[in-house]
């Protein structure tokens, strides 16, 4: 196996490097990728189209919003898949109960507990900021969603899985995850119902008469980012909760 791997790796590496001379130089602003009309368009027209200074957010949620919708679906699938594979459902005889030695949560440390109590609200507030401010600064639904999910994971690490699950029970996070994708695709379907192509947010201005098409795009982007954040935060916690408890959702690390 080692030899097969080595040969495969040397062969692939040689193949990848063989094209290196043909590459544009690193940092070349006029390489085909950087000077293409597509990327020029994003840089020049984002403000005009939607008024969002962060081009990455604009491309992510608007121009290539279709990709991002499926990316959210990928996250949803990951959570559902882990539950389908690992979750030991009630009534189904599963693996052994977690041994008492694993239940570190019961003997929690005062320093960790206090730190987490201080840290978690700040973390959640920051997550909301990241979600909402993704138009103007780095961030958006994915990053904010992960931070929000991480705050629940931190609760689970510090206090044990059960207190964390009290705050975000299984039924609720599964529902949240689905609702997130429903929000995202709902925006697209709304555009569809108003007679435009899927995810063409500009048409949503008819719902709010005071705004123009660019503002409608900007606000819709925020809307889909919130949907993304729902799904991502719920699924990140779901992944951790299932992996940490071998799918039994009790005890934890």
């Amino acid at each position: 196996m080692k030899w097969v791997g080595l040969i495969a790796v040397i062969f692939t590496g040689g193949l990848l490097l063989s094209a290196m001379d043909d590459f544009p130089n690193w940092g070349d602003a006029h390489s085909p990728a950087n000077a293409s009309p597509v990327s020029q368009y994003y840089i020049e027209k984002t403000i005009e189209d939607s008024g969002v200074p962060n081009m990455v957010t604009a491309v992510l949620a608007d121009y290539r919003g279709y990709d991002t919708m499926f990316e959210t679906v990928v996250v949803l699938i990951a959570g559902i898949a882990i539950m389908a594979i690992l979750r030991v459902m009630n009534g189904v005889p599963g693996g052994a109960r977690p041994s008492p030695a694993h239940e570190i949560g019961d003997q929690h440390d005062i320093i960790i507990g206090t730190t987490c109590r201080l840290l978690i609200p700040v973390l959640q507030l920051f997550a909301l900021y990241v979600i909402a401010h993704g138009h103007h600064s780095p961030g958006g639904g994915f990053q904010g969603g992960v931070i929000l999910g991480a705050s629940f994971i931190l609760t689970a690490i510090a206090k044990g899985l059960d207190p964390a699950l009290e705050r975000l029970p299984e039924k609720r996070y599964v529902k949240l995850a689905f609702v997130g994708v429903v929000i995202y695709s709902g925006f697209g379907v709304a555009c569809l119902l108003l007679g435009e192509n899927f995810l063409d947010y500009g048409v949503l201005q008819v719902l709010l008469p005071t705004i123009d098409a660019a503002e409608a795009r900007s606000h819709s982007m925020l809307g889909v980012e919130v949907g993304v954040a729902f799904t991502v935060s719920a699924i990140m916690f779901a992944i951790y909760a299932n992996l940490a408890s071998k799918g039994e959702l009790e005890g934890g690390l």
Partner: protein
Amino acid sequence: MAEQYPIIVLLVLLFGALFVGLAGMADRRVCFPLTMTALVLAVMVSVGILQRVISGGVIRYFVGGWSRPVGIGIELRIDTINALVLLTITTVGLLTALFSFRRVQEDKTEKTPLFYVLYLLLIMGLSGMVITGDAFNLYVLLEVSSLTSYALIAMGKSRRAAVAAFSYIIMGTIGASFYLLGVGYLYLRTGTLNMMEIHQAILALDGPSSTIVVAFVLILVGLMIKMAFFPLFGWLPNAYSYCPSSTSCVVAPLMTKVGVYVMVRMMLTVFGTEWVFENLQYTQWMVGIAVLAILAGSVMALAQVELKKMFCYLIVAEVGYMVGGAWMANHWGMVGTIYHIMGDAFMTLCMFLAAGIFVKQAGVVRIDQLDGMFRKMPWTMAGFVVGALAMIGIPPTCGFFSKLYLIRGGMESGHWGYVMALLISSLVNAVLFFRIFEIAYFGKKPAEGHGHHVDHSEESVIKEARPSALIPLLATAVIIVLLGLFNSNLVELIERSLQGSEVIGTRALSSKGGLG
């Protein structure tokens, strides 16, 4: 409304999955009706898409309305080839969902909603892969379908299902990553992700570019892993035979075929047949490997004692048919390949449905346990026989006509080795399936007393499958025959896309055909 069909077919499946997830948690009984509704709608919409493509030509749908400089948004692009493959995918999805009805509810009561969510998302991912016109979007949807199939395979009750799923994850990730890297190389040189735009940029390049060649090789190798082409098929037999029947019935017919479809799409639309066949001298090599794939798959299939494993190795051989056909640089080879994508999807579906019924009703896993099946399960065997005749290649099933086109392509382009391999493989299939028929019709020789004899008291318990399992099987058999009967119409549709103005390089295809 009608111009929105391309997105609606995906949305129907997506919302089906979301509603199954949300409503299924409250009441498990709604899962199956919701799933069926979504799939029936999806089939209807794909029929609508096919009609529109036939009457109105290529459909181009710009998601988000971003059409001005092509490539800033994502384009869905459907010609007759996509439309036919899309209809195949949704139909297979519908038939398998019907088949899974009782099975899933008996197997995994608590996880039923999760199964149907993953199932619908798998069909959505495959459909999306087929209709997209964006190279990166294809990667995202490839991952959607891969992740769902990993999960569905790992849900198998067998202890080995998890191990098979793990090696599938490793191989699948390598394949998808190679594809992603290939798209990266393409992007570096062309600056766009839209398939048609990439093609234009490749045509506009002055002189040969090693980056494009490496990109092509990376994408090809990635897809070869995904479609289990000859040296890289190790993951397939275990993954497909240890998963639940309702999973194998959808994964086995579709995953490899969609891989072949994507390869064909890359050759036709992204790189262009002219570039692929005239710039690269890979034709002999690829057809040579395809010959090896056919022979290896057939020989391995002969050696198997388990029914599902045997079918898995037959898939390896069938992939060899298709890759070889596509790489013959010949009009009939390409037509035969695309026709075979559809035909083989239904043939494989028929095989796995029958295998699923055998396991369920009679607990049959091995070929020698099939004795007396014609007497006990006449309808199941009838469906199975049609599928088997198609695998062997007997008219009027679709298997005969696809082999006819492929052999014609092979003869015209002078790939005699491929023609021989195809005939040998048909012979092997004939041996395999007539052996099964013999066991199932005449029963085993009484001298063979050892091993897994079913108790005679148990034997009488074996009875015909339930309608929910039988209808999909018989429907598949009918479709196999219909595909064969209407082969000239289908070929005409396929040729229309090959000769369409936007698929450049048909000239190369037909001229080479004439030379052969």
